[in-house]
C-alpha cells in the first residue's frame, strides 16, 4: 500500500488534473484560467513519464512529455498576447464579462 508504484503517480496526476479543471471552470481572471491549463498539461505529463517508467515503453513517454512542454510554452506566449489585447480593449481580464471580439 505504501510502497510507491504506478498508481501513486497516477493519483497525484489526477489530483492535479481536477485542480486544473476547477481553476478553468471557476476563476474569473484569464491568467488564473491559464494557470489551470498549465496544471492540466502537467498532470498529463506526469502520466506520460510514469507510464514510460512502469510500462517498458523505452523513452517514448519522456519524449512526448518534452513535446507537451514545448506546446505549453507556445500556448502560454500566444495566450498572454491575447490577454494583453483583451486588457487593452476592455480594461480588465475577467473572462465572464468579455462578450465582444472588438470594441
Amino acid at each position, binding site marked *: 500500500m*505504501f*510502497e*510507491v508504484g504506478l*498508481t501513486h*503517480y497516477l*493519483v*497525484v496526476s*489526477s489530483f*492535479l*488534473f*481536477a*485542480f*486544473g*479543471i*476547477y*481553476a478553468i*471552470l*471557476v*476563476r*474569473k*481572471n*484569464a*491568467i488564473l484560467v*491559464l*494557470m489551470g491549463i*498549465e*496544471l492540466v498539461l*502537467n498532470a498529463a*505529463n*506526469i502520466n506520460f*513519464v510514469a507510464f514510460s*517508467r*512502469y*510500462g517498458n515503453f523505452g*523513452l517514448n513517454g*519522456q*519524449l512526448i*512529455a*518534452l*513535446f507537451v*512542454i*514545448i*506546446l*505549453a*510554452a*507556445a*500556448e*502560454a*506566449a*500566444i495566450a*498572454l*498576447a491575447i*490577454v*494583453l489585447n483583451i*486588457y*487593452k480593449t476592455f480594461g*480588465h*481580464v*475577467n473572462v*465572464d464579462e468579455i462578450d465582444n471580439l472588438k470594441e
Partner: protein
Amino acid sequence: MSIYDFIFYLFAAITIVSGLMVVSSGNIVRSAFYLLATLFGISGLYVLLGADFVAVTQIMVYIGGILILLLFGVMLTSDITHIEIKKGKVAVLPAVVGVGVLLGSITSIMMKTNWKIELSKIQQTTTYDLGKLLITDYVLIFELLGILLLIAMIGAASMARRDDK
C-alpha cells in the same frame, strides 16, 4: 518505507498542497508563486521516475519561462498595488461538485485498474538516448515543433505590439 517512498510522499505533498493553493488562493500573485512550488514538486517526481532531462527541462522552461511570462501577465493586467486584485469566482458550488465527482471517478479508475507493470531499466542518464530518438524516430515532429514555436513567437509578438490607430 524506503527512502524512495519517503521522498515521493514529500514531493507529492508539495505538488498537491500547492496545487490546491493555486486554485483556491484569493491573491493572484500568490497563486503564481504557489504554481512555482507545484512545478518544482512535479520536477521532483520526474527525477524519481528516472527522467532527469525532463525534470531539468521542466525547471528551465516552466519555472524559468512560463511562470515568468505569467507573472508579467499578472503585472501588466492587474493593479497589484491595489488591495482588491480580481479574485472573483463564478458558480463555485456546481464546480466543486462536478470536479469532486470527476476526481473521485478518475482516482477510483486509476486505483482499480489492474495495470500491467513491466519496469523499464533505469538509465544513468537519458539525455543521449532522448537526443538520438529526437533525430531518428521523431525527427518530423521535432522539425514541426520548431516551426510551430517560431510561428507562435512571431504571432505573439505581432499581437502584443499591435498599434491601434
